[in-house]
């Protein structure tokens, strides 16, 4: 059975290993042939910021993991435009190609999902 599963990332990177575990879940759900989408909103958009280098703070470099999502068939990555602009970010600041959604388009995405998991 195929379900539409949306993961919402709302947290900035380097907050413990939360992003790391969330990505494991995203990839594993996708590896079981479910339709997985990821939405980045609020501070979650910082996950995709280019040029992150956590070596100096002694943390694992998780940003390249997002590049691995395509290996598991996760191609639909959505970013809310207002979350970017509120943080002085633009599409050019992101490490991956994404689909931009306006805030008023988010409800439509949420409404089409069978399962929504946040982190």
């Amino acid at each position: 059975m195929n379900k539409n599963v949306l993961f919402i990332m709302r947290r900035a990177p380097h907050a413990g290993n939360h992003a790391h575990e969330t990505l494991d879940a995203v990839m594993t759900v996708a590896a079981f042939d479910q339709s997985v989408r990821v939405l980045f909103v609020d501070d979650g958009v910082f996950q995709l910021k280019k040029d992150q280098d956590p070596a100096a703070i002694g943390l694992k470099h998780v940003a390249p993991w997002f590049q691995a999502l395509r290996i598991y068939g996760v191609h639909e990555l959505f970013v809310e435009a207002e979350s970017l602009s509120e943080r002085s970010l633009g599409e050019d600041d992101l490490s991956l190609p994404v689909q931009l959604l306006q805030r008023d388009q988010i409800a439509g995405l949420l409404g089409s999902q069978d399962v929504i998991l946040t982190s």
Partner: protein
Amino acid sequence: MSVLHIVNRSPCESRSLELCLARAAAGDTVLLIENAVYAAMRDSIAARQIETALGRIAVCVLEPDLAARGFAAAAPLEGIARIDYAGFVELSVAHRAALSWC
């Protein structure tokens, strides 16, 4: 299909409720639980946002969480429904997906 939005953070501590309301669709339900029940009180910091949303979105508050915080006798904002855990389960049955804004 409608979504049940579950908010559990105090509106004084987090923008979760505000951000949830901005993204909820007409016909969705927002349920305030745990520390988010403070938002349901009259004159709370979130009162205006909730009042503005109430036409489009149903807003409920979890009664046992109000009681736990000393607000059993207090009247929440007009238009907010008080529900118990059975009501919470019913809401999750009535909506296709539940989303926790934690």
